[in-house]
């Protein structure tokens, strides 16, 4: 990752923006939640936002006593649907048991029929319930048989005529009904026609009977109920499946397998399973399709229980239907795709009178709106949540990082707080803010959401980022109050205890003993004090004895401690003196307590050890010096003989010309050997630091003059001219004159050996702030293809074919001498120009540093 992006990510304004975004997410989410929780619609209850399962749940709840379903009762759509389903099932139940209703059979017969029909799989419990219902019904029926309520007679009459007039209105339906009936299976058709005929006859006879039978109270109620029922059912398409028998009931004009299957399998949008468990009827037998209008007519004529009491009538019908197990059906509602796709606004019910379906669609519209809201809410919530998490990740990642000191984590001042304290504080603060602001609203302006929550959130965020910083710096657990105040002190304490327990060497025994003594002193004193306080009011003798022991013990302890301390002091004194270099003061063993003896022994051993070490060091130094001297002597003695005898041999005036030449070579080489040995000795002395310097104030100019005077002739032999100008001031350096001469004479020797013949040699004396400077420049005879630094190394010579003169140590010795005197030797090579510069500290600067 490049620095630019890091710079961007770690910048303050970017972090601020991310914090603001996360704040926005949190607040928006809270506002959403708040809106939803305060809205009357129970959005959260919709399962999977599918109308299918939703309706299924509703229809269940409509007929079961499942307490969880009561929650949904408030939804208008649910109400409508459940009502509708109930009616469908009622209708189908009636239709299914139409024989019973037509026959006017007694409840007893019905019970028998049902029991016969469902004998196999009807569980005993439900059969018992049914029996109870029937018995209740029968008893109520019997008890109320005699009751005659004639006051409502006129009312009943009116209603019946009304029903008759509405029946007149729907005469045209009979044709349709007959068309439908024609689709019926033959036996059903016959039965229907028979029933229709019978119904007509009955109507006729009823008219004739002039209300005697027909206008009974029960008949009226029942017919009113069913009339209502049928008018409702007319406006919807539905399929009901008897789960026990697999019989299918529908108000579709025709029903084919596709309809049914699309309803059952839920393909397409228009079918909704209202009742559950359709798996059991994979292969249904389509029993019939019903023209309810036609049926209504016949039902209104024939289907009624034989009862008179109006209250018991309705009840009785409910009972009968219950007995007939209207629950045992799956109901599918057919909805127009228009409604499902949500284009409800464009829908205009064709028939204004069909209010039921209008209600249904309206409720569906509300439902769809709710579902959409819920979906939107879900999406919004998800988006906000995800972006919030992203913000947090970005913040946590950038926390504590800066471009400058990456990858180190920069902890800010808040992080000095212990982390657990920080956590509790943040938690506390958040709780206080949230609870104090609470549910405050001010004229529709929610304070808790707009002020309290953001502040609380910022407190939380601050804590979170601090955690991130600490975690990255690996200080989260170490930097806690628990760790600092409890864990660490405990560890320390145990390590101390462990240290004391581990003490086992002789010397360590002393500290062990001191610890034990102090502890036992405290314990004994505590016990004695306890005893004293115990005896205060009691035994005078015991008190005085204890007091005596107390005083005696303490006095003894103090005296012993003082004695111990004195001995310890004596040992420390001796250690101090040993440190200062006095090894001869021995520890007085007799005056020392036994427990301190190991320490005293150690001190004595240390003294003798140091004595030996110093003696060895002195001896080593002396041996080193002696070695150099001895080697020098052993080399020089034979060399003396060689030089002497070569000289003597020369004096012999040999006749042989060659022998004389050889002798010259010998003479040259032996003299060179002499120089070599001298230089070698000097160099080895310098490198071993075996040189004594006697620095004084030395005038560098004077020295230069002397040097020129000493060597001018020698240089002139080679045709070298010395150019030397008097400087403006004469630098006085603090150096050993003899050694400084050695430096300069070495440099001049170099010039003599390597300078181009008949050239000029420039010598300059100058000074800068701290150093006096002597420099020499000359043109080299040979090509200088050596680095300046290597020239000052030992045995390095400028020309590769090593010069016959010189030892190769001259510059090395000069450099060492310069450095020993606090100066330096600089060699510069520029082509054939060779420049050597000697820098030596000025007396003034030495004074200055000395003063400082």
């Amino acid at each position, binding site marked *: 990752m490049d620095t630019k992006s890091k710079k961007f990510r770690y910048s303050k304004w970017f972090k601020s923006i991310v914090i603001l975004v996360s704040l926005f997410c949190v607040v928006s989410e809270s506002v959403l939640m708040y809106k939803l929780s305060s809205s009357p619609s129970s959005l959260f209850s919709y399962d999977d936002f599918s109308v299918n399962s939703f309706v299924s749940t509703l229809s269940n709840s409509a007929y079961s006593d499942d307490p969880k379903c009561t929650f949904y009762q408030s939804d208008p759509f649910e109400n409508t649907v459940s009502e509708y389903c109930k009616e469908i099932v009622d209708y189908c139940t009636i239709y299914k048991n139409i024989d019973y209703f037509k026959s006017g059979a007694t409840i007893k017969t019905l019970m028998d029929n049902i029991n016969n029909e469902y004998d196999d799989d009807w569980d005993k419990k439900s059969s018992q319930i049914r029996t109870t219902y029937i018995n209740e019904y029968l008893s109520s029926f019997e008890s109320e048989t005699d009751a005659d309520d004639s006051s409502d007679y006129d009312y009943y009459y009116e209603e019946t005529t009304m029903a008759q007039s509405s029946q007149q209105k729907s005469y045209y339906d009979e044709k349709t009904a007959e068309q439908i009936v024609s689709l019926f299976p033959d036996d059903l058709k016959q039965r229907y026609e028979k029933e229709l005929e019978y119904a007509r006859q009955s109507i006729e006879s009823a008219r004739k009977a002039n209300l005697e039978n027909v206008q009974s109270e029960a008949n009226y109620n029942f017919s009113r109920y069913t009339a209502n029922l049928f008018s409702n059912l007319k406006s919807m398409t539905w399929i009901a499946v008897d789960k026990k028998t697999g019989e299918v009931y529908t108000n579709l004009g025709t029903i084919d397998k596709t309809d049914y299957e699309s309803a059952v399998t839920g393909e397409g949008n228009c079918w909704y399973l209202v009742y559950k468990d359709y798996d059991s009827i994979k292969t249904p037998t389509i029993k019939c399709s019903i023209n309810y209008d036609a049926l209504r007519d016949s039902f209104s004529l024939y289907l009624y229980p034989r009862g008179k009491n109006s209250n018991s009538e309705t009840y009785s019908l409910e009972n009968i239907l219950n007995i007939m197990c209207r629950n045992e059906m799956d109901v599918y509602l057919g909805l127009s795709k228009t409604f499902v796709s949500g284009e409800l606004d464009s829908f205009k019910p064709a028939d204004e009178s069909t209010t039921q379906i209008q209600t249904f669609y309206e409720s569906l519209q509300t439902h769809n709106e709710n579902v959409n809201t819920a979906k939107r809410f879900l999406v919004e919530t998800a988006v906000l949540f995800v972006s919030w998490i992203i913000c947090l990740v970005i913040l946590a990642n950038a926390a504590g990082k800066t471009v400058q000191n990456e990858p180190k984590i920069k902890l800010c001042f808040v992080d000095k707080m212990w982390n657990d304290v920080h956590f509790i504080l943040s938690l506390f603060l958040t709780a206080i803010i949230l609870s104090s602001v609470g549910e405050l609203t001010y004229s529709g302006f929610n304070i808790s959401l707009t002020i309290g929550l953001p502040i609380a959130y910022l407190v939380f965020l601050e804590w979170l980022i601090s955690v991130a910083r600490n975690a990255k710096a690996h200080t989260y657990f170490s930097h806690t109050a628990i760790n600092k105040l409890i864990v660490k002190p405990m560890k320390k304490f145990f390590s101390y205890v462990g240290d004391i327990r581990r003490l086992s060497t002789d010397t360590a025994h002393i500290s062990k003993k001191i610890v034990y003594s102090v502890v036992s002193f405290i314990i004994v004193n505590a016990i004695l004090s306890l005893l004293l306080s115990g005896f205060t009011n009691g035994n005078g003798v015991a008190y005085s004895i204890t007091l005596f022991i107390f005083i005696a013990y303490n006095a003894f302890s103090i005296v012993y401690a003082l004695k111990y301390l004195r001995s310890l002091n004596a040992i420390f004194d001796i250690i101090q003196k040993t440190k200062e270099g006095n090894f001869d003061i021995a520890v007085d063993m007799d005056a020392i307590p036994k427990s301190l003896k190991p320490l005293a022994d150690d001190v004595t051993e240390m003294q003798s050890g140091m004595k030996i070490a110093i003696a060895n060091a002195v001896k080593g130094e002396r041996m080193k010096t002696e070695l150099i001297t001895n080697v020098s002597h052993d080399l020089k*003695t034979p060399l003396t003989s060689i030089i*002497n005898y070569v000289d*003597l041999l020369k004096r012999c005036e040999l006749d042989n010309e060659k022998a004389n030449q050889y002798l010259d070579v010998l003479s040259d080489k032996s003299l060179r050997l*002499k120089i070599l040995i001298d230089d070698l000795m000097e160099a080895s002395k310098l490198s071993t630091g075996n040189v004594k310097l006697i620095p004084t104030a030395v005038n560098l100019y004077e020295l230069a*003059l002397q040097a*020129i005077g000493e060597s*001018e002739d020698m240089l002139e032999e080679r045709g070298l001219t010395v150019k030397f*100008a*008097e400087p403006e001031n004469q630098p006085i350096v603090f150096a050993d004159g003899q050694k400084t001469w050695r430096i300069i004479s070495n440099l001049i020797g170099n010039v003599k050996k390597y300078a181009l013949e008949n050239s000029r040699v420039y010598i300059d004396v100058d000074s800068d702030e701290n150093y006096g400077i002597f420099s020499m420049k000359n043109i080299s005879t040979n090509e200088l293809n050596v680095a300046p630094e290597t020239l000052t190394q030992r045995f390095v010579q400028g020309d590769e074919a090593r010069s016959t003169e010189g030892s190769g140590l001259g510059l090395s010795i000069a450099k060492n001498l310069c450095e020993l005197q606090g100066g330096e030797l600089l060699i510069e090579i520029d082509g054939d120009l060779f420049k050597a510069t000697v820098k030596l500290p000025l007396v003034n600067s030495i004074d200055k540093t000395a003063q400082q």
Partner: protein
Amino acid sequence: MYNVLICDDDKAILDSIEIYLGVEGYNIIKAKNGIEALDAVKNNAIHCAVIDIMMPGLDGLTTTVKIRENQNFPIILLSAKSEDTDKIAGLNFGADDYVTKPFNPLELVARVKSQIRRYVNLGSAEKSDSQIVTGGLVLDTSSHEITLDGEPVHLTAREYGIMEYLMLNMGRVLSTAQIYEAVWNEPSFQTEKTVTVHIRRIREKIEINPKEPKYLKVVWGIGYKIEKI
């Protein structure tokens, strides 16, 4: 005929020195160590001794000390040690000169000659008021002559001027500028170089080994002085 005692544990050196000094006409008495040397001193009248410092048994320094107990002849120490401290120690023990190995045989001969001449002439030469003396070096301010171990040294007028100025201020270190102004009698200005050249030439005339001067010493970076001996 002067007797010269040579003492060295190295026979080759002993023999070579014998040859050199023998050529000069000295009677050579050889000793291989300090004890032999002391015996020789007891039995002979020695005029000069050349003693090596590092010897088995009795070393050169101790021998010198023992000889100095009752003898006054010049002693030249011979040593492989070239340190100044060694020289100073040797001279303090009573030696008169010091030669480091490996030495130039002719230089040794010259030193022996010089020492014997001084030893033999010592006391015989009369010292007048006009004479300034240090060791074997005598400057006569009246005759404007300088003699070394009794033999005249030939100096130019400038050289004599310098020597006189230095001898008059014997033991004092004088800078080139001082010397120039005193001798040339004019203020110095970039001319002191000539002083140093002159001094080197004087040294070549009065010193046996100009590189290790006995009388006219260079105090590096400060000036020159005549050593009071």
